[in-house]
């Protein structure tokens, strides 16, 4: 009894930490899909890009991966701005976002993955940092720093974004465009410009998420695909338009997945996200905190 309580307790705690990591990975899509209605299924590919950049910085110059990802932020922001510009002209204006717009992102996902394979090969890559390996022990609960640090980074990122969205002018404009682009236009603000900034931010988060990913696990190009289901399950469960909802949903998924992995084996983990996604879509499509 004691042993399985310990197992359960640790599984839940790791699940929470994992959930924090999932939150970091999902916040970009919470912005692009939840607020801008852009189904960027290529987001995991950009996260992987961030991971590989962190890997290079760490392996060649010994730079801490998280620091590297912060330095890379502007580049990712510009990448996001560029992609949105193409997307807006090619699909939003033509009204063809549901077929060709989706195919566009699917193509980007694929191109990124294949390019990474060509450049880096399919071997697993990892980084070295002082917090990968040791754990903090609180009584019988073990907190691996490898999970704790990304979780903290994720929470900081969430906090910063939440502050930005609710306090700054641009942030509130982004929330406005999410709710009513027409009204925004009437108030002489340009929705396209605002969406461009928002999408840029969304891709910028991928930089940090990438660093956090390679800290948690070794990476190779195809693992991005495992995350598509997780990310969208989280954003849908949390509710479109709610950043806070994304955080709650991410923690929920983290705990659910970890419990499944602990008691039924890790090979069943991918099914958990899909199960949650299907259940949410079937019974409460607007998610926990989404707009009605």
């Amino acid at each position, binding site marked *: 009894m004691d042993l399985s309580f310990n197992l359960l307790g640790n599984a839940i705690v790791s699940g929470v930490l994992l959930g924090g990591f999932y939150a970091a990975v999902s916040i970009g899509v919470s912005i692009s899909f939840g607020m801008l209605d852009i*189904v960027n*299924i290529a987001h995991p590919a950009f996260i992987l890009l961030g991971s590989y950049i962190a890997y290079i910085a760490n392996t060649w110059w010994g730079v801490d991966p998280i620091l590297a990802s912060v330095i890379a932020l502007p580049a990712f922001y510009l990448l996001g701005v560029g992609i949105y510009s*193409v997307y807006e002209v*090619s699909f939003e204006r*033509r009204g*063809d976002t*549901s*077929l*060709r717009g*989706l*195919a*566009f992102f*699917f*193509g*980007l996902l*694929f*191109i990124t*993955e*294949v*390019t990474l*394979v*060509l450049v880096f090969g399919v071997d697993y890559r990892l980084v070295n940092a002082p917090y990968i390996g040791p754990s903090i022990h609180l009584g019988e609960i073990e907190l691996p720093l490898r999970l704790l640090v990304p979780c903290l980074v994720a929470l900081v990122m969430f906090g910063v974004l939440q502050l930005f969205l609710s306090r700054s002018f641009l942030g509130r404009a982004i929330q406005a465009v999410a709710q009513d682009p027409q009204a925004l236009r009437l108030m002489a603000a340009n929705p396209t410009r605002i969406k461009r900034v928002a999408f840029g931010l969304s891709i910028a988060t991928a930089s940090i998420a990438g660093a956090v990913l390679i800290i948690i696990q070794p990476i190779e190009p*195809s693992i991005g*695909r*495992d995350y*598509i*289901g997780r990310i*969208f*399950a989280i954003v*849908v469960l949390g509710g479109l338009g709610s950043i806070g909802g994304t955080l709650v949903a991410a923690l929920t998924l983290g705990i659910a997945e970890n419990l499944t992995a602990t008691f039924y084996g890790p*090979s*069943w983990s*991918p*099914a958990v*996200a*899909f*199960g949650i*996604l*299907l259940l949410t*879509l*079937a019974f409460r*499509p607007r998610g926990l905190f989404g707009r009605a």
Partner: protein
Amino acid sequence: MRNTSFIALLIAAAAAVFAAMLWVGNGYVFFAGYVVLQYIVLATAWNILGGYTGYVNFGVAAFFACGAYSTVVLHKLWGPPLVVMILVGGAVSGLIGLGTGYLTLRLRGTFFGIATLAMSVVAETLITNWQFVGGSRGAYIIRPEHAPHLPLDYIQYLCLVMLGLSVLAIATARAIEHSRLGVGFATIRDDELAAEASGVPTLRLKLIATVLSGGFMGMAGAPLPYYVTYLDPSSGFNLTYAVNTIAMPLIGGTATWLGPLIGAVLLGTLQQVATVTISSALSLLIVGLMLVGFVVAAPNGIIGWFKPAVRTSMRRLRGSR
């Protein structure tokens, strides 16, 4: 042109292609030809849902691989003739389409797309955990030497079967286009709300499209184990199938059955050539780049370049009931 005459023409064309392949005699022609024909079926099937109704199915791998794995199961159980396996593969995938569709088609098209993408991963997880079909270690299928009842090598037989499926898929697609069903599909693509208000049973039609599309993809996957002789989840569920199947109609043109055919032949042949001359990874990159390029710059595909002529002739051909 009536449907029956069109089908006759298709069969004649298919016979001519097969005769040409036999005349060339080189075994490689059949190995490469099988892949191109397989993609003709996949692309045409995908387009029935994606091009005609506008609902994107990213879970191509799930339907395709489930067709392949149902063959593995049947092979291990009692080994019926290939045609039976194809029908079963089609039925299994059709049912999967029905199930997925029923759960997600009431929602927006984008949610459907996301659900199919996630479903692919789940299907792969389930198969990987299923020891009966070999799990992650895969399954070996022995390819017979000769075709049953016909004086052909088995690989030639596989090509013949795939030719037959291509004829079936294209004939079905064209029949849809020229029927009331095709009109209904087009209204769903253009404006689903207005379609409902005009009396179109949108959910039922979308389910029909999903079942047909999934079923054909399953049938295309059913002979795969005999072609590759070794099947494991990572190859069966390979993302390449999904990208190609989606790229081909988008590049060829999604409006009619001709687009996926053009896309499959063009892109399929290009890839076979590129895999031999450069590398398979590079040829995949080319596919991805072409997909993005066409979707951004040439949304009507290759057919769109000849658009005015095609549009008027399509209008003259399209009847009403």
